[in-house]
């Protein structure tokens, strides 16, 4: 029986291939909407696991800097 899932969870975090959030380019037309109609973000970055992955990536880069 698996009592500690930490190892599996860590291994399953594929942070090397995280999808980078794509910023929408604002259009410059006169009739272009000033605000986005939907406030809900549709990108993958809104998923909690991805946000955890982004935090992990920052920490890992720091670690790599330390270890050289």
């Amino acid at each position, binding site marked *: 029986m698996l009592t500690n*899932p*930490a190892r599996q969870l860590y291994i399953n975090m594929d942070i090397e291939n995280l999808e980078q959030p794509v910023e929408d380019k604002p259009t410059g037309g006169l009739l272009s909407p000033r605000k986005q109609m939907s406030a809900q973000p549709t990108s993958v970055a809104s998923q909690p696991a991805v946000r*955890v992955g982004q935090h992990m990536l920052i*920490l890992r880069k720091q*670690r790599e800097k330390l*270890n050289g």
Partner: protein
Amino acid sequence: MAEPLFDAPIPGQSLTAELGGRPWQSPAQYPTVDEAIEYYMSRMATDEFADSLLEVMEMGIPLTTMANTIQMSSVMEGKHSVDVGMLVMPMLIEMMMLIGDSAGVEYDNGLTELKDDTTKDAVLDNVRRKLKEKIGEKEETPEVEDVEEEIEEPTGLMARRK
């Protein structure tokens, strides 16, 4: 055969407290992953935490075990839900690795699979104890000598002659 667990909860023990009386039965203090990460980051950034963490690391306890213990205790304190704890756990391991690396401490991250050729001392002790018990039992019980039964040769009229 599996040995019986004596530290298991008594049937009905969960019903001895009032419903909602436990911290984990009320809404979590940090319901989202972002809030939980912020909580852990601020907690783990303190010198007190780092000192105690490094002590435990030097004792050889795997980081995966520590991460699981930390998140589980937070769940029991009602800080966050079990789901958030599961999501946050990899980040806890990464953070602890960073603390260990920055302090230059050698640690066991617990991510490598257990090798079959390494046997824990506790297992060896258990086997040794069982062997001793078996040897003791053998010494106590008298040995039964193998007695060959003498087969009586048939002597009837119809018996085979040699």
